[in-house]
Structures are given as structure tokens and as C-alpha cells.
């Protein structure tokens, strides 16, 4: 019989190390991807993911199944990611004025809405285009989109993780998807023929 995540965590609490191993194998990949999309750096994402598992292990004795395991788990991950993003932003502000130009990723020109996506555009470029558009979202909007779209969580769970009301979350998600709709227009825009004669939203 398959044990639920909550049951696995209760078993970890009771001292069953194999259940922790099971949770590690189950969630390592979604967690690393979530954190990578949040912090935009693979090494940092892995460090944070290790920290999340360590915190889960440390908190095992105090664990009580008052919410879904994923809510608790991704809340830890989201808080760590948001702190990391903010710390990193702060460190970047402290770069001296005479320091060499930031050697981040090369500038990536986002196509304009009118630009048609090249049919031969490499799959990798397309994926990178999407990744950068999501990465450019404000961090809270980014977390909301990642939890909604990729972790397929319901609104109640995401609202708990982001510590906001469900209506505030809906508004946050709408703004995030609206930004992405504009940024990724070449991938999502309807053919001109279908849009002939139709206006923009009022």
C-alpha cells in the first residue's frame, strides 16, 4: 500500500530513516527545479535544496500533520528562496562603483509582440526565452506562478505558502500571467487573421 507524504513524515518522526530517504527521492527533482527557477542559479538552488531537506529532518520531532506535507515543504523552500533572492540583490547593490561590469548572462533580447517566432528557432533558445521571462517576474509573482503552473497546487495551498489571502493570490497570478502573456507574445499571440477587427480588453 502506498503511504501518503504525511504518513511518511510521521514515520520519519518515529525514527524511520528509510521514509526520509523516500521523501528525498520523491521531492529532490521538483524541489531543485523550483529553487533553480526562483534563484536562477543551479549551484545556489542545490545548496538551498539541501538546506530544505535538512530543515525537514531537523523539524521531524515537532512535525504535526496540520496541513498537506507539500504546503509545509514548499513553504520552507519558498522562504529560503525569497531570502536568498533578497540577500543576493542586497549584495549586488554593495558592488563598488569601479567594479567591472556585471558578468551575468548575456543580454537576451525579448522579441516584440509583433515579432513572429522563427519556426526554426532552436528548442533550447525557446526554453531559455521562457525561463528568462519567468525569471524576470517579481519574486512573489514568480513563486506564485511556479507553484500554480509547475507544482499544480490549489489556491488555498499557495496562499498559505505565500502568506496571503486567496483573492490576493488570484490578483497576483493574474498580473504575473498578464506580464508573461506580453513578454512571451511571439509564442502565444493568435494569428493576425483570427484577430482581425477585434479590440483590446477594455
Amino acid at each position, binding site marked *: 500500500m502506498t503511504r501518503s507524504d504525511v504518513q511518511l513524515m510521521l514515520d520519519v518522526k518515529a525514527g524511520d530513516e528509510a521514509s*526520509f530517504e523516500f521523501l*528525498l*527521492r520523491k521531492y*529532490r*527533482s521538483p524541489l*531543485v*527545479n523550483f529553487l*533553480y*527557477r526562483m534563484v536562477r542559479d*543551479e549551484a545556489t*538552488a*542545490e545548496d538551498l*535544496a*539541501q538546506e530544505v*531537506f*535538512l530543515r525537514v*529532518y*531537523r523539524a521531524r520531532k515537532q512535525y504535526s500533520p496540520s496541513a498537506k506535507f507539500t504546503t509545509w515543504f514548499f513553504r520552507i523552500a519558498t522562504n529560503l528562496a525569497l531570502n536568498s533572492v533578497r540577500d543576493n540583490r542586497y549584495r549586488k547593490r554593495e558592488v563598488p562603483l569601479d567594479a567591472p561590469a556585471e558578468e551575468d548572462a548575456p543580454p537576451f533580447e525579448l522579441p516584440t509582440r509583433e515579432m513572429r517566432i522563427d519556426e526554426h528557432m532552436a*528548442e*533550447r533558445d*525557446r*526554453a*531559455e526565452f*521562457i*525561463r528568462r521571462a*519567468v525569471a524576470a517576474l517579481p519574486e512573489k509573482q514568480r513563486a506564485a506562478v511556479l507553484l*500554480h*503552473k*509547475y507544482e499544480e497546487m*490549489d*489556491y488555498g495551498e499557495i496562499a498559505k505558502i505565500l502568506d496571503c489571502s486567496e*483573492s490576493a493570490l*488570484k*490578483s497576483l*497570478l*493574474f498580473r504575473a*500571467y*498578464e506580464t*508573461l*502573456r506580453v513578454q*512571451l507574445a511571439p*509564442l*502565444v*499571440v*493568435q494569428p493576425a487573421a483570427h*484577430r482581425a477587427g*477585434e*479590440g*483590446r*480588453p*477594455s
Partner: protein
Amino acid sequence: MKCEDISNELIAYLDRRANSAERRAVEDHLAGCAACRERAEEFRALWGALDGMPVIEPSPGFDARVRQRVTAEPRPGWFAWLVPQPRLAFSLAMLLALGVWMARLPNRAGYGAPTEQEDFNAIKDLGVLENYEVLMKFDALSELPAAPAPQPVPRQQGDQITND
């Protein structure tokens, strides 16, 4: 429903998480608003496009590093068996303190109804206390200081009573 009102419900409608009333309201609006219909279609296309987000795999040594850090965590000592739960330990300590405090309170039975033996003792000496002769000859009473006679209170000038 106006276009700006639909915005918060549109996402829930498109990902099929809206309730029936919200769904009907959005459908009514979309039926009459080509611009919002177009936007809804673009949202659908956007979600399809977002599936193309690159996926990374944790590095081969990831699990080993997590295990290493978990193993390095301090294990609970033998005394942890005595204190399985901090809250439980605190509650037991409070109960113990309450028990000690109550045990040190004066025995409330002494303030209650007198026992049969106490009644007997009280009655036994009653005859002696009622005997005036015995009391007069009781030496211990003569050693008590005599109570001072009550002094008249001098009248103040302002206290004079006039019969005018």
C-alpha cells in the same frame, strides 16, 4: 461583469478551479467580449508554452550530500528517552510543582468541624472556668497588668454647645 472585474476570475476559470457561479459569470462575459475572449485564448496558449520551461536534474552527488548533512546532525542522547516531548515534560514539571505547593499548605481539616475528642476536651474544663472561686485563686491571672480606666475626653473649645 466588466473586463477589469473578470481578471481575477479568468485564471481560475481557465484552469478549471472556478466554482459554478464564477464559471457562469466568466462565460457570460466572454460570450459578449471579443477582447477578453482573445486574451483567454492567449492565456491558454501561454500555459502550453510554459510547458517548454527547461528542466534540470539534481547533480549526481546531491543525495549523498543531503545524507552526509543529515548524518552529521547531533543525535538525541540517552536522556531524550526521559524527555520525549518538551511540552509533556513542562506539563509534568508544573504538575509536580503544584503538588508540592498544595502539600505545604496548612491542613485545612483543622479549620473544619471539630472532632469528637476535641469536643470532649473543651467540655471537660468548662466546669473549672465557670467556678468563680477557682478563678479568683488562679495565680496566673493576678500577673496580668490591670486594664487602664477609660479617661474622659477633654472638650475642645469649638465643641461648646450653646443653647441660644
